[in-house]
């Protein structure tokens, strides 16, 4: 347990120490909120979709979590390159604990990032259902864990940052754009709906949207089921791949 806490604490310290990173990773979500929220808002409303900001904010919160989480996981590559990983790998601690500690740390950071987006959204006119906040935190935490574990799994296989761009453009960006973060799935073309169904992010966004904003597509039971199973699976895969690292 001590090891998990130690690894968790390291992630937290590193995050809160790099203010530039905190502010920097808020840029994109804010841009999405302002440009899309206000830009498409009137059209969305005119088309009978309701208030677009109410619809969009949970999606953008999820985006903030997604990118921070994947990035936290991928940080292992940096540790590989800068040598710190070796220090943890020769420690008399099970690799599973190391992976779990790191994942919890990365997920905490990602969750925090999601909360920051939420607070910013309040300032530009988002009015959440406050009763949904506890449930929203559950969804955000699950999403954060899921994607940190995904990042860790990816980073365990990659040796350097060369592959990072590939992962961003062909995995993380599609996960975000095809998830229903920006548009309602119910009225989307069938093919797009089918893709969204195999996109794990769709489920956390749907959950978050239904408890904070407006609309529900999959239903809580489906959302939670998919997220819990996938998170467990990815932590398992991540631990396995991480335990196989030889330097």
């Amino acid at each position, binding site marked *: 347990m*001590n*090891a998990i*806490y*130690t690894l968790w604490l*390291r992630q937290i*310290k*590193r995050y809160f*120490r*790099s203010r530039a990173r905190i502010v920097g990773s808020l840029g994109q979500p804010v841009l999405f909120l302002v440009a899309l929220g206000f830009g498409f808002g009137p059209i969305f409303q005119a088309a009978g979709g309701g208030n677009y900001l109410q619809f969009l904010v949970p999606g953008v919160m999820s985006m903030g979590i997604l990118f921070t989480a994947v990035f936290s996981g991928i940080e292992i590559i940096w540790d590989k*390159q*800068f*040598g*710190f*990983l*070796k*220090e*943890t*790998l*020769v*420690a*008399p*601690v*099970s690799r599973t604990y190391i992976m779990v500690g790191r994942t919890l740390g990365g997920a905490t950071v990602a969750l925090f990032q999601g909360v920051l987006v939420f607070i910013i959204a309040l300032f530009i006119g988002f009015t959440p259902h406050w009763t949904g906040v506890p449930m929203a935190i559950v969804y955000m935490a699950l999403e954060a864990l899921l994607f940190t574990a995904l990042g860790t799994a990816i980073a365990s296989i990659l040796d350097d940052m060369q592959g990072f761009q590939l992962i961003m453009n062909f995995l993380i960006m599609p996960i975000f754009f095809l998830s229903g973060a920006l548009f309602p799935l119910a009225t989307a073309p069938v093919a797009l709906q089918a893709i969204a169904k195999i996109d794990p992010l769709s489920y956390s966004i749907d959950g978050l949207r239904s408890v904070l904003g407006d609309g529900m597509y999959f239903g809580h039971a489906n959302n939670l089921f998919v997220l819990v199973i996938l998170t467990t699976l990815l932590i398992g895969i991540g631990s396995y791949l991480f335990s196989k690292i*030889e*330097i």
Partner: protein
Amino acid sequence: MSIITVDHLTKKFGEFKAVDDISFEVKAGEIFAFLGPNGAGKTTTIKMLTTLMHPSTGKLAINGHDPVADQEAARRSFGIVFQDPSLDDELTTYENMEFHARLYDVPKEARISRIESLLKFVELWDRKNDLVKTFSGGMKRRLEIARGLVHHPKILFLDEPTIGLDPQTRNHLWEYIQKVNKEEGMTVFLTTHYMEEAEKVATRVGIIDHGKILTLGTAEQIKKDNNSSTLEEAFLKLTGHEIREETAGAKEHMRQAARMWRR
């Protein structure tokens, strides 16, 4: 009593044998130096001894534990200073020490007092709250040595500990290491490609080239056996080439470049 036993150890990467059927023992309390050019198999051997890599064939024992079958016990037995830096630059000196101590389950009181005495020992106590990224190469190396000692290991591995350091820092470093060896009776296993260092600090030297151990013994013994006045000459006679003329492989070039960038 031997604290490290290596028995017919081989490591293959594809067809290439990085370490080729080597056997040797290191006695408790010794300073043992592995001497050889880049790519001789020194680091690969250390990696296998320290559980970072699995041997292709052969048996190992570290303080009585098998680093393959009994990783945790083996890991508790040693501290290591890697060839490349392995500190967290975004943490302070103290935090790096604390991180290590916690991972090795050093009890709180012992942790506090040991961190303090070790940081004083390597003359970094007054920099304890500074971020490591502000440190020079020599300071980082000193911190790494202090960190490797926090959990009171039986064996200290040093993989090319003086590479990239200026002569003065290098001398200091050896003083520390000899002091630890003497005062704590700690076994030291080091690799180097500097002849004079091996000759000066090591109780015994093993010369390794192309994955094979060519000879083992005290520096005096090796010189005598090869009718040489210096270790350098003995090395030349044993291997047929000088230690530094060996052309480094592409991977080694990359490593060197990466090291330059980090400084």
